[in-house]
């Protein structure tokens, strides 16, 4: 009710960093209660999780690798949100990006590096168009993007399964496609590190040697670069100005001569391209192929949570994505360490994530409320 209190709360929430830390602690606390109820020692469990992420360079590398696609899908959701759109479709755009990356990575014959660039371009374009469909439906027919993107997610899933099963692309005796050509691979020195020379050299540097045991790749660098680009577009360009204006108040934007419909489509295309790049990075760097999907993998959905935790800012996303990656990578280690059923571990991780994401969500609601209320005071 109290507007002053509302804005006090708001400033507390947006004094973000401190508050995020507090909510992480609360999340861990509630997670601990869940563990206790399930009959496990939370201190032991969290100990396993912590050492499972930080005790070896390899683990840290893995956590970062887990984080990379989430950072990028988070950017996709955040970009759309900053321009007034709710991109539930990052999941489907991710699938399309991954699929196109696997196709172009396998079928195109190009020199190294150039091949990578071309794959990224194709994946981003395809996923951008995929996102653009939702933008177009909204701009042209007023179909809410939440509805259309959810449906597009399913279409993407089945499209993926159809294409993976096509002759010539599907690797026989498997449920997945052929692997991409080496020229499209973005792993860091993946051949060299397994060669004799590489092994010998690395044996002098135990830290590096351990680090390189993980599928280290350029994905994280690409995620950082994309965060920088998103920040730049939103804050420094006329395009960002237009998109944000439309997101905040489309009537004023229209009055100012900004094409509202065009902006909605543009924004969804960019958001889609970002999510698609997440899929491409994952294929070129980690999986090297796409598989038949029985269910959604959740990269896009997790991106929503990442974006919430990251307060919809480009660099908040990097931090939130890393946190998420660490949880996703370290969490399951409780399972083997304590013989805990995987359901318990899922519940604990879910709880932690929920409590970390919820302040962002509350903040979003508060912002919306104070937006509604801000000018109810007869100014």
């Amino acid at each position: 009710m109290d507007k002053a209190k509302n804005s006090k709360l708001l400033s507390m929430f947006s004094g973000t960093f401190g508050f995020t830390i507090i909510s992480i602690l609360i999340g861990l606390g509630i997670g601990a209660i869940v563990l206790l109820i399930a009959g496990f020692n939370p201190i032991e469990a969290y100990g396993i999780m912590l050492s499972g992420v930080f005790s070896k360079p390899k683990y840290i590398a893995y956590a970062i690798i887990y984080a990379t696609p989430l950072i990028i899908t988070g950017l996709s959701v955040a970009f759309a949100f900053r321009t007034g759109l709710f991109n539930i479709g990052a999941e489907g755009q991710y699938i399309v990006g991954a699929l196109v990356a696997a196709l172009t990575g396998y079928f195109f014959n190009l020199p190294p590096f150039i091949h990578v660039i071309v794959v990224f371009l194709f994946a981003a374009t395809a996923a951008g168009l995929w996102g653009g469909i939702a933008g177009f439906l909204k701009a042209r027919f007023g179909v809410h993007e939440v509805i259309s993107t959810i449906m597009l997610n399913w279409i993407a899933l089945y499209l993926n399964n159809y294409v993976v099963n096509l002759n010539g692309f599907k690797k026989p005796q498997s449920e997945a496609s052929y692997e991409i050509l080496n020229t499209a691979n973005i792993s860091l020195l993946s051949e060299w590190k397994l060669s004799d020379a590489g092994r010998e050299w690395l044996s002098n540097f135990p830290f590096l040697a351990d680090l390189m045991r993980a599928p280290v790749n350029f994905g994280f660098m690409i995620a950082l670069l994309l965060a920088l680009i998103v920040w730049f577009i939103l804050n420094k360009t006329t395009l960002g100005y237009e998109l944000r204006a439309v997101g905040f108040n489309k009537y004023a934007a229209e009055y100012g001569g900004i094409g509202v419909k065009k902006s909605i489509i543009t924004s969804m295309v960019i958001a889609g391209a970002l999510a698609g790049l997440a899929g491409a990075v994952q294929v070129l760097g980690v999986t090297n192929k796409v598989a038949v999907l029985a269910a959604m993998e959740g990269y896009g959905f997790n991106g929503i949570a990442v974006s919430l935790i990251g307060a919809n800012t480009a660099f908040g996303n990097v931090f939130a994505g890393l946190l998420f990656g660490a949880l996703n990578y370290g969490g399951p280690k409780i399972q083997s360490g304590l013989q805990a059923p995987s359901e318990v571990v899922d519940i604990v991780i879910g709880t932690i994530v929920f409590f970390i994401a919820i302040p962002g969500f509350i903040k979003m609601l508060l912002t919306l409320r104070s937006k509604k209320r801000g000018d109810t005071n007869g100014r």
Partner: protein
Amino acid sequence: MTHSKFQEKVVEMKNITKVFGNFVANENINLTVHKGEVHALLGENGAGKSTLMNILYGLYTPTSGEIFIKGQKIDIANPNIAIKHGIGMVHQHFMLVEPFTVAENIILGMETTKGLGVLDLKKAINDVKQLSEKYGLHVDPEAKIEDITVGMQQRVEILKALYRGAEILILDEPTAVLTPQEIHELIQIIRNLTEEGKSIIIITHKLKEIKMAADYCTIIRRGKFIDTVDVSVTSEEDLASKMVGREVSFAVDKVEAKPGKKVLSIDNIVVKDNRGINAVDGLSLDIYGGEILGIAGIDGNGQSELIDGITGLRKVESGSIQLHGNDVTNKTPKEIIERKISTIPEDRQKRGLVLDFTISENMVLENYHKKPFAKNGVLSHQKIKEFAKELIEKFDVRPTNENAKARALSGGNQQKVIIAREVTNDPDLLIAAQPTRGLDVGAIEYVHKALVEQRDKGKAVLLVSLELDEVMNVSDRIAVIYEGKIVGIVDAKNADENTLGLMMAGGGETHGQS
């Protein structure tokens, strides 16, 4: 105090101070209101009136100071406490649930049930009827909010407060959104309420209304208490000079217009409103450089749709619009702006501003993509800031911080931002829709001067206002709009209120185009 009939103090605000960050919005303000009294609050835009009332209603907590209600010291930490002590507030922007009916809105949060949580809507409708008859607040309890006029919505808000037992009613700029007719009705309602022993605190920039309705008036200037005066012995001029701190001239001084070439020519256009009805219905009008053409008319006769049609925000179904002899019918808003038509929109918060943008960002809403504000698609925040600073200074926007969000500005200052931006565009045709709505007299003087200045530079100005006084004072020619058509054009020098009023009501003889 000269009135002997006001004995019983119902509200005493003592030494109220409110600080936002390092900005002092209220500084040691005192306000005393008696039972049965109408107390006006007067002050320039941003003086701190809404802030003070939000404190009384529990929306803001004061930084220091005390509040006594009926002699009892109360800590009004939230609106529920205020309501419990008989304080009600009607905000300038209403807080009604659009798809709900009038009665549902009034009882919202205080529903009477027939037991088992079943809503007793019959009783509610009855209660509402009784209340509305008692005070002459005419509403249809079963109508939906989205279907009723702004004036009626306001009555619903008042009823809502009364239903919650309000003894002290705060009205924040209630007349800014009303037509002259509705204002008279509101003043009558206020009289009915005070006769029943209720007290009213009313914020308004219109001195005429204060003279008509208020007993006392408290004047605030830049957050400071200036004086509380007995309205019956204080002239409008005195009120104005106390408020601004200098003499204010009400008359618009301007020399004879020197009309030049035809700038805009509207020929027989039809524009539909949201319901698909021809709101502008075969309207023709010419506007010349060097003149201010005022459009007089009762709200809802096609004024908004006419402006939207000219500026490309609404489709022109038939007919044509020409600017300097070139067809501009149904061009996009951007093309219209490029051709040097600028608009001060009637709804500043919906059209005129992106409230979550800073003042700087708002100052370039139409020009953000042009040099020097952007190069190759990259914004120059530095240049935008410098530009904003210049306009803030020139147009006396307060606060002067260009990084403040437009949302944090008082209503009047929001308006100044828009006016600064549009006038600086230096358009060939400036459309000003309700340009002084919610502005204080000092600012109104300023806006009128700015319009006359544009005219004197040889530009065409189209002024659309629901206030006949304003149209008559500022315009050179007056076109009366009725049911989507221009029913007559008169020279402002020869215009008289009665004839215009008659024409506005559809009763005048039809003059030819002049």
